[in-house]
């Protein structure tokens, strides 16, 4: 079954659950092997042109920003992004020519991405946050759809592939959204071990759903810890290793966003992103922060600096509940 469908004017990604299951059976190892690689290798091995990518949270909070910058550095093409909150990421991915389609969610920030949509440089599909979260849950549960009592009565229904059926139990109209099984999930976490067991502290959008539903999962982690840590406190495990394909050690991997209880958002840098209004400004930002550095560590050394990182760490004083 084709993985991109078009019905009427609406294109959507859809895998037959059996096709996804076969991928899980054949391509996902259950062996607890060392999957630690650098961001460059993770992205070059596990992200292909044309891939559908989801990620958890945003450029403001615990987003996988180091991985996204690496995608841009490697000039991936024709990506389709699915995100509940896609903020500066989508602007950068579109500005760099990497992404051509976005399923949202909440599409912000700044004028660059809004203008790109109006110019037809990127196609946006509107699923709403709840609709996307449910699509990924359907993908994680191995069912072709899940039902919901929203989207109904609105124009979102017409610009998505959601469908209304008559509920056999009550007779009322119920909305169905199709399962989403992305090619790749990016998840930035507080702690991981080398085989991929991972912990997020605090809330998440759909981390476990995305890990179960995605063909390939790249975890980037602030800290690499002993595997035994997970077995000592299984209630804290967000994702077990056998869902994960690659582990990247990426301290400050959510920069310029915040990592709860680790470092605060760099609002100055975020304002530079907010200020991007045209392609020239976009190109300048990309050159300076992405193309001109070899990777995440050089970016941190030359574009952020230890003093700034220290200050951002200092500001993250709320640790209650995050441990």
């Amino acid at each position, binding site marked *: 079954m084709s993985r991109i469908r078009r019905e009427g004017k609406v294109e959507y990604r859809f895998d037959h659950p059996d096709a996804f299951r076969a991928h899980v059976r054949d391509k996902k190892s259950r062996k607890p092997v060392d999957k630690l690689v650098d961001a460059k290798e993770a992205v070059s091995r596990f992200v292909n042109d044309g891939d559908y990518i989801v990620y958890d949270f945003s450029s403001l909070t615990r987003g996988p920003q180091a991985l996204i910058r690496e995608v841009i550095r490697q000039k991936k093409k024709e990506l389709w992004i699915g995100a*509940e909150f896609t903020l500066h990421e989508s602007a950068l991915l579109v500005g760099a020519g990497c992404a051509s389609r976005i399923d949202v969610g909440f*599409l912000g920030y700044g004028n660059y991405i809004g203008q790109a949509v109006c110019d037809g440089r990127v196609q946006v599909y509107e699923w709403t946050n*709840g609709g996307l979260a449910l699509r990924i849950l359907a993908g994680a549960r191995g069912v072709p759809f899940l039902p*919901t009592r929203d989207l109904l009565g*609105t*124009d979102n229904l017409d610009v998505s592939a959601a469908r209304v059926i008559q509920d056999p139990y009550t007779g009322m109209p119920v909305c169905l959204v199709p399962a989403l099984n992305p090619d790749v999930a990016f998840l930035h976490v507080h702690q991981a071990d080398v085989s991929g067991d991972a912990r997020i502290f605090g*809330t998440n959008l*759909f981390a476990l759903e995305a890990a179960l539903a995605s063909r390939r999962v790249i975890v980037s982690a602030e800290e690499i810890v002993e595997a035994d840590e997970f077995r000592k406190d299984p209630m804290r495990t967000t994702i077990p290793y056998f869902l994960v394909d690659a582990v990247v050690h990426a301290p400050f991997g959510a920069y310029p966003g915040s990592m709860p209880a680790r470092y605060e958002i760099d609002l100055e840098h975020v304002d530079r992103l907010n200020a991007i209004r045209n392609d020239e400004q976009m190109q300048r930002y990309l050159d300076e922060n992405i193309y001109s550095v070899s990777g995440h560590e050089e970016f941190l050394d030359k574009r952020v600096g230890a003093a700034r990182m220290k200050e951002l760490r200092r500001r993250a004083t709320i640790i209650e509940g995050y441990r």
Partner: protein
Amino acid sequence: MARTVEFTDTEFMIAQGARLLEDGKTFFVGWGIPQVVAILAQKLYVPDVVQLFEFGAIGPQSILPFVRGTMGGPQNTYRSLQWLNMNWAFSYSAAGYMDYGMLGALQVDPYGNINSTFLGGTFEKPGRRFAGSGGGNQVASHCWRTIIIIKHEGRRFVPKLDFVTSPGYLSGPGARERAGLPKDTGPYRVVTSKALFGFDERTKEMTLLSVLRGASPDDVIREMAFRPRIAKEISEIAPPTEDELRLLREEIDPSRIIIRGERMTAPA
């Protein structure tokens, strides 16, 4: 001469919103201004309100000052009762546990339908594109009472939306139920920078209830592209109180990121 109060249109909307909430009720908080409304309300009026954010924070008590750009971080998930994820957050609302929801809007129509997606053109090729629903569609679909918070400008109050992002009463009485939306839900109030609207019980049309002290219903209606219904008695809305303004300016948003806006005055 009577003393006057100076404030911004945003401050006025926030203060109005905060006064609408009920204590000991649940409140699904949209992003941006509704966050500040929730903080102000909980500090001043409704200490036992249970806030809920779509990113999985159940019952947080946000820390002050409000930090711009935080979403799901320690500030606005502080001292939550429970941390979950988005699918669980929307279970709380879908199963009927959310009393109030509050949303911003680009445009609103006489039935309280909301556009937050685009203005002009078509969905595929919009004139101007905005953030879209986020979780707004779910909030407006599931919560018992949805409060819309919107700047009072004529181009925002239109007879027909460019795009229906989140449902109000759709085409009128019974339309939500016919579409399959949960029974007895829908828009409850529209808070603007000049007035407060409700919805007529019978016709489900937007109805002017109150205007800012010193303004007249005509001042309000003049700046709308449709004519709302008018309540039999129009009450007066007090401008932001000293307590509200002090808390907003000194404790909640000292950098004036959210509360800035057009300057307004009203009799104290």
